[in-house]
């Protein structure tokens, strides 16, 4: 792929001469979402621990999916309410599933990485037993 098109002036002019100015806004919003989706997936590969990976994956992909979907809704205005419905659905269900998987991995005994500083669930269990 030819990446020199990214800083081509003709491409910018072509974008400005699009159907409307809202299309450029939609393209930029979708780009922000796509970058955040990539960062979330990169955090899944890179971070050392299950809990850190849950944090990176859930936060970044929720934000990225929200912005990508809203951006497509801005580009195609007759699809906006359906796109908003998908975005709100992801915004509601993604934290719930990530909380469920974090709780399950804590209960099934997945240990924290060795660079962790504090484990408050263990402290809570000890305080409850005492």
């Amino acid at each position, binding site marked *: *792929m030819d990446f020199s*098109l*990214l800083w081509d002036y003709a*491409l910018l002019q*072509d*974008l400005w001469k*699009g159907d409307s100015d809202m*299309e450029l806004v*939609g*393209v930029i919003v*979708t*780009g922000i*979402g*796509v*970058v955040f*989706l*990539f960062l*979330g*997936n*990169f955090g*899944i*590969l890179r971070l050392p621990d*299950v809990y850190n*990976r*849950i944090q990176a*994956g*859930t936060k970044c*992909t*929720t934000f*990225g*999916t929200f912005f*990508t*979907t809203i951006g*497509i809704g801005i*580009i*195609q205005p007759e*699809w906006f309410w*359906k*796109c908003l*419905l*998908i975005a709100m*659905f*992801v915004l509601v*269900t*993604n934290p*719930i*599933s*990530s909380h*469920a*998987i974090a*709780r*399950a*991995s804590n*209960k*099934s005994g*997945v240990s924290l990485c060795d660079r962790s500083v504090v484990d408050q669930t263990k402290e809570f269990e000890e305080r409850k037993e005492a």
Partner: protein
Amino acid sequence: MNDTIIIIYLGIIAGGILLSLIRMFLGPTAADRAVAVDTITTTIVALLVILAFVFNRYIYLDVSLVYGLLSFVGLCAIARFMEGGF
């Protein structure tokens, strides 16, 4: 929306899915794999919305919504199973 921009966006999303796929094959515990699959499915929901715009099909938005719903239900079932429930 320019064709070049669409190809760049789809390429970035495909690279991200590839990174998560490496973690899914590599992950030491089952929770790692479950988290990787959750991230991949949330990414694919966004990818299906972009593909709906590329192919100009309204029905793909419904497909994306149902995909997200099934992913949520499946991950909750996996979490319940790992917890020792049922």
